[in-house]
């Protein structure tokens, strides 16, 4: 019995000591599962930092996308919360900040470090004037074009300027027997890109933020209704591959890479993944691919939306009990040298100013210049508006394409979700 008691005591003591040690020098980082190359990059950064700071132990953990989103709220409330975690900024970060689960880092990020990020990107990680994290990369949603198919169908994608041009091109392709667009309708969010972009083009850059503050009828504003009408006009041409509403994002991505459709509205991040999903594992060559910006509207409800871009600004948020060391590691990971490595390897387009000059891929270069030259970079509505309203935006976009709702009803449903969020 005494033996047992002693063992128990020793065990508790050693466990306690272990925990204390872990708190001092361990920095845990949780990220949505990235690609192999990005994971390898983090392993290198981890080693480099640990070599300079032998008393610090950096631990990267990865979970799959959907699981990450549903686990994070619970995780942040537990003692096992990571010090740094991957974040989409926007409403989700606001909710976390309001509940007190993230740490204000204004005092810990020196002015010269802050100056390496564009202000708009820092804004995405700022809630009520306080900084809770740092941006990592920006993405843009563009039309990927299969130039073989557009040529075959007799369409010059470089001549497409307006939405009407685009509808015309879709019709021409259809008449030529080419599937104009592939999309992953079952997952809904690939279709929300259309509604969001159209709303930006129709209502100008601040259409979303003013709707959030309730101005001009909120989400029932004319611009959102017009966006719904534009989308219905497209859907009426039946431009998508057959069975679009039963196709997932992954499948559609592979279909585009297999040359089954001429246009594909998707983020720049799909450049490598879509090739991996092609049935031959290679997909379209760089010569067969082109990027086209989302068309403009010739007579929009409000002017000013023609130069806006839609995409994401993703980065790292700092959780409540994170140590100063964690923030120090964060700034190290995001320094220009490290981010240039990312650019060189073509992993993604780093947001740190100047790092994108190291990009070698022409498509990424184009997207980087789009984003830096953009009048306004709108974050994905399904992230920007929070989980609930975002999912409603996805729902109504899919319903508009499936002809299951009207533009007015779609706008009203989003407003209702916003009221009840």
């Amino acid at each position, binding site marked *: 019995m005494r033996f047992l008691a002693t063992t128990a005591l020793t065990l508790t003591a050693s466990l306690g000591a272990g925990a204390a040690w872990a708190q001092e020098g361990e920095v845990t980082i949780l990220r949505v599962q990235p690609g192999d190359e990005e994971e390898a990059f983090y392993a290198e950064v981890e080693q480099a930092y640990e070599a300079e700071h032998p008393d610090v132990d950096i631990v990267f953990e990865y979970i799959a996308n959907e699981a990450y989103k549903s686990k994070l709220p619970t995780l942040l409330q537990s003692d096992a919360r990571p010090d740094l975690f991957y974040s989409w900024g926007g409403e989700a970060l606001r909710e976390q900040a309001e509940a007190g689960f993230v740490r204000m880092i204004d005092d810990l990020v020196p002015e010269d470090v802050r100056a390496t990020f564009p202000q708009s990107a820092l804004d995405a990680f700022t809630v009520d004037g306080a900084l809770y994290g740092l941006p990592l990369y920006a993405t843009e949603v563009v039309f990927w074009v299969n130039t073989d198919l557009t040529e075959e169908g007799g369409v010059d994608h470089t001549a497409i300027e307006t939405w009407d041009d685009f509808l015309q091109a879709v019709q021409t392709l259809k008449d030529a027997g080419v599937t104009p667009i592939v999309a992953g309708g079952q997952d809904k969010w690939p279709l929300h890109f259309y509604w969001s972009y159209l709303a930006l083009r129709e209502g100008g850059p601040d259409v979303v933020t003013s709707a959030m503050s309730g101005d001009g009828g909120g989400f029932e504003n004319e611009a959102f209704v017009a966006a719904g009408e534009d989308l219905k006009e497209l859907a009426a041409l039946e431009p998508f591959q057959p069975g679009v509403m*039963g196709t997932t994002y992954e499948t559609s991505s592979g279909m585009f890479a297999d040359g089954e459709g001429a246009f594909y509205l998707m983020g720049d991040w799909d450049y490598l993944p879509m090739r991996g999903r092609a049935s031959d594992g290679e997909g379209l060559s760089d010569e067969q691919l082109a990027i086209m910006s989302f068309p403009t509207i010739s007579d929009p409800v409000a002017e000013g939306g023609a130069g806006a871009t839609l995409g994401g600004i993703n980065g790292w948020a700092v959780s409540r009990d994170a140590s100063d060391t964690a923030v120090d590691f964060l700034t190290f990971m995001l320094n220009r040298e490290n981010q240039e490595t990312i650019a060189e390897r073509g992993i993604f387009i780093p947001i740190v100013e100047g790092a994108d000059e190291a990009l070698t891929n022409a498509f990424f270069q184009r997207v980087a210049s789009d984003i830096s030259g953009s009048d306004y970079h709108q974050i994905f509505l399904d992230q920007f508006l929070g989980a609930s309203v975002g999912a409603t935006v996805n729902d109504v976009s899919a319903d508009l394409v499936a002809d299951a709702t009207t533009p007015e009803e779609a706008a009203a449903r989003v407003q209702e979700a916003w009221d009840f969020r």
Partner: protein
Amino acid sequence: MTDTTMPPPEDRPAWGERFRRVATNGRLTAVLILLPPALILFTLFVILPLGESGWYAFYDWNGYGTPEDFVGLRNFEQMAGHSVFATAVGNTVKIIVVSLLVQMPLALFLALLVYRKTPTNAAFRLIFFVPYIMAEVAAGLIWSFVFDGNYGVTASIATTLGIERFFVLADRDLAFYAVMTVIVWKYFGFHMMIYIAALQGVPEDHIEAARIEGASRPQIVRHVQIPHIRPAIAVSAFFAIIGALQVFDLIIPLTNGGPSNQTQTIVTYLYEFGLTRLRIGFGSAVGVVLFVAAVLVAVFYQRIFMRKGTP
């Protein structure tokens, strides 16, 4: 029941005497050792969460911190006014109806064919039972490939018949029929097994007697076998209804509730509108409604059908 278990009052020993007997014969020790683990686990993982969701249901809560925004019955009102919730309830009812009117008769028919113990029957029993053994998510994925209009079985059918390719799971009107087909396919084996076990317990001489009296096969089934296995049918119908209330993991890989929320069930609705949208309060309210429905079914069903059936 009362007259068999309790001794007449005058024979009952004094309380002290009874306690001593219980304490010394080892039963109390057994209870003290064996009960707590189960009780604690059950309380921690069943009773507490149940109570908690009953509490969250009255709050507008996104899962962060503690619920503070008390909204009374608003979550329930919203649910009642939500067209997708109505679709989800309607779909659940459809699954119940199909389970009772298609799946169970099919299972009974097959059970009557293979209940006798022969090697061939054993093989067929195994084949019919395989879908039930398979994990729901795997089954859902397999069927999503079957229904795929580009590469799936439906695509080959369309090519063979020379008709245009069709996409069942992308069709707002057809998708739920496809889902119900998969549900029938997935669970008929389970009901068949219940019937087989019951049919094997039907006394052979009753069947023999009926046959000598000149009863035909359908008459034997109708008047001898089915009356004998009525309790088993009552149990299988009970499982069918409770199972229908919980359908979830087949739907997610098949349609994910789509297109346009046409294939939501109550549980996928809870998941989609409560969990993925981080409206934990609302999701809890749906959970409470589902729980009440399940309890009502369980209680009333047992009262009405299962008591009469048991000997």
